[in-house]
């Protein structure tokens, strides 16, 4: 890139791939490092791909999971799972995550992603790999057919928004509340076509688990990708010691800048039927009874999420009118729940612990709602019908808020309970 100052993270990554400096608005075609698909959209993708009659461009760059239909709830789901396993065998794909947890989490844990990679997946939350410094985004099935055949994809180089974080969270506040805050400020199309890039002095205090939440929900703001600056914690997470990663340049030409004091945030909640319909949790006090609470998914199923939930649930019981459903984000997370004794805390409180997977987030199995029911969920979307029933309501909040609400049976600010516990 000559003697020019480094651009935004998106520019740096796409520029390195293109072999020259690139500017927002340009269309570039780049090589793909990782192509992700799963049993929901993978079978369709593979069948179309096979119509082309060509070899997969690079089986070692394809990552396939079975994570939504886990285990299958219907014969049709089971058929999708079977076809997925057949396709993986037929095309010589080695990198898989079958019944291991949501693809974005197992991909992050797999060690396959490197900062500077281009990652595409037939799932909108593929953008989560941005927390590891990869330009990662969701694409459709036919677009993936093209990637399978050619290993390349076009992008319009996005403008970027810099979100600079400083300060420390108050107890009971977490990364989920950062995203909900951004949604309340920008709306669900506030970052459309843009690269959302996170940096700032508070990043060092934010574990990678929490950074993954920021990238994961970038798509809820309409963003093309959600990149987080790479540091020693990123490299440690990936198990590498040295990597020539693109680093965030705060002086790059950002289209917009948001300066955020984490210490000024409070627990937030998105009411039905939009992730952008955000208000402080305190505003809902005593007004919204819940029948289901969910802590899991690629957004809210990591060990840090369960630690936050357990801090609320320890020594308490889930309200008798509430089903608290837990789906660990991966087998690794599940084992850590056992090792840390958190599984006992969850079970003692009355949680229903299900297989690692997407769980009830997408309304496919394992926790579909009845007519008129309210759910509070640590997942990412509350569209009408999202949890399988258009006549039900989904509220989005942090794992701590979900846990507190599970105990009281209504949407509840977790700070009340954390304050009690510390007395």
């Amino acid at each position, binding site marked *: 890139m000559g003697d020019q100052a480094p651009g935004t993270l998106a520019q740096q990554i796409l520029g390195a791939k293109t072999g020259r400096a690139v500017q927002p608005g340009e269309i570039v075609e780049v090589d793909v490092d990782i192509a992700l698909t799963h049993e929901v959209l993978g079978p369709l993708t593979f069948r179309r791909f096979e119509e082309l009659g060509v070899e997969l461009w690079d089986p070692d760059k394809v990552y396939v999971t079975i994570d939504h239909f886990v285990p299958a709830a219907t014969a049709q789901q089971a058929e999708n799972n079977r076809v997925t396993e057949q396709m993986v065998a037929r095309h010589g794909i080695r990198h898989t995550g079958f019944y291991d947890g949501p693809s974005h989490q197992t991909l992050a844990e797999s060690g396959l992603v490197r900062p500077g990679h281009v990652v595409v997946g037939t799932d909108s939350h593929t953008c989560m790999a941005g927390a590891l410094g990869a330009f990662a985004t969701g694409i459709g099935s036919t677009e993936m*057919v093209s990637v399978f055949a050619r290993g390349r994809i076009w992008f319009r180089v996005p403008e970027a928004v810099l979100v600079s974080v400083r300060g420390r969270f108050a107890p009971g506040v977490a990364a989920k509340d950062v995203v909900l805050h951004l949604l309340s400020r920008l709306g669900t199309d506030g970052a459309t076509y843009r690269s959302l890039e996170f940096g700032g002095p508070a990043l060092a205090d934010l574990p990678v688990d929490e950074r993954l939440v920021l990238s994961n929900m970038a798509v809820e703001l309409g963003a093309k990708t959600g990149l987080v600056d790479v540091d020693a914690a990123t490299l440690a997470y990936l198990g590498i010691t040295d990597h020539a990663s693109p680093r965030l340049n705060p002086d790059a030409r950002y289209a917009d800048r948001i300066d955020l004091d984490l210490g000024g945030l409070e627990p937030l909640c998105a009411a039905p039927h939009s992730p952008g319909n955000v208000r402080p949790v305190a505003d809902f006090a005593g007004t919204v009874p819940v029948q289901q609470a969910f802590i899991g998914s690629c957004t809210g199923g990591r060990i840090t999420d369960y630690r936050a939930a357990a801090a609320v649930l320890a020594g308490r019981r889930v309200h008798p009118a509430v089903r608290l459903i837990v789906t660990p984000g991966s087998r690794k997370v599940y084992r850590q729940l056992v090792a840390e004794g958190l599984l006992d805390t969850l079970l003692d409180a009355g949680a229903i612990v299900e297989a690692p997977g997407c769980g009830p987030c997408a309304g496919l199995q394992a926790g579909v709602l009845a007519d008129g029911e309210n759910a509070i969920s640590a997942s990412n979307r509350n569209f009408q019908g999202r949890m399988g029933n258009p006549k039900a309501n989904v509220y989005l909040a942090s794992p701590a808020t979900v846990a507190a609400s599970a105990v009281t049976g209504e949407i509840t600010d977790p700070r009340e309970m954390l304050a009690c516990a510390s007395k």
Partner: protein
Amino acid sequence: MRVEVTGRLWRLGDNVDTDILFPGRFMTLGGASKDAALQGLAAVDPELAAMAPGDAIVAGRNFGCGSSREYAALALRDLGLRLIVARSFARIFYRNAINVGLPVVTLDDVDDLPDHGPLTVRLDTGTIVDRAHRRVFRTQPMPDFLIDIISKGGLMAHLHATLAAEQGRRPAEAVTR
């Protein structure tokens, strides 16, 4: 490229999401069909189940937000919709629509469009002509390479052509199968 809307223009609001356009429970090889889209839309407004070939959708901001499920765009195309006009599109849906050959146009003043065709849309010049009311709406022309994909009927047909051209330049053993 020219697109003719002959039927009704169905008006939808902002943030029409993929769970409405194609509910998740239909997303299997055996369960996916265009009728799934009608079930999702009908849950919002029963009248939408009457959408028919030749019609178009006129929507507000952020149309198609949410999931990457291409089924959402595919079902609208298979219902025979000729066009989606919106104030803005969610980016994955926008690409999916083009990739399945469903024309998409971004327009600010969607409220001024009529409730019924005929409308003639030209993607290359970015114009929408409402002859009955003697009105012309102007928007951004679509880049040629995207029009090329739509006019071939979608990315699959385009890909067949691209691969055939590339195969002509590659050694034969690289393309066995």
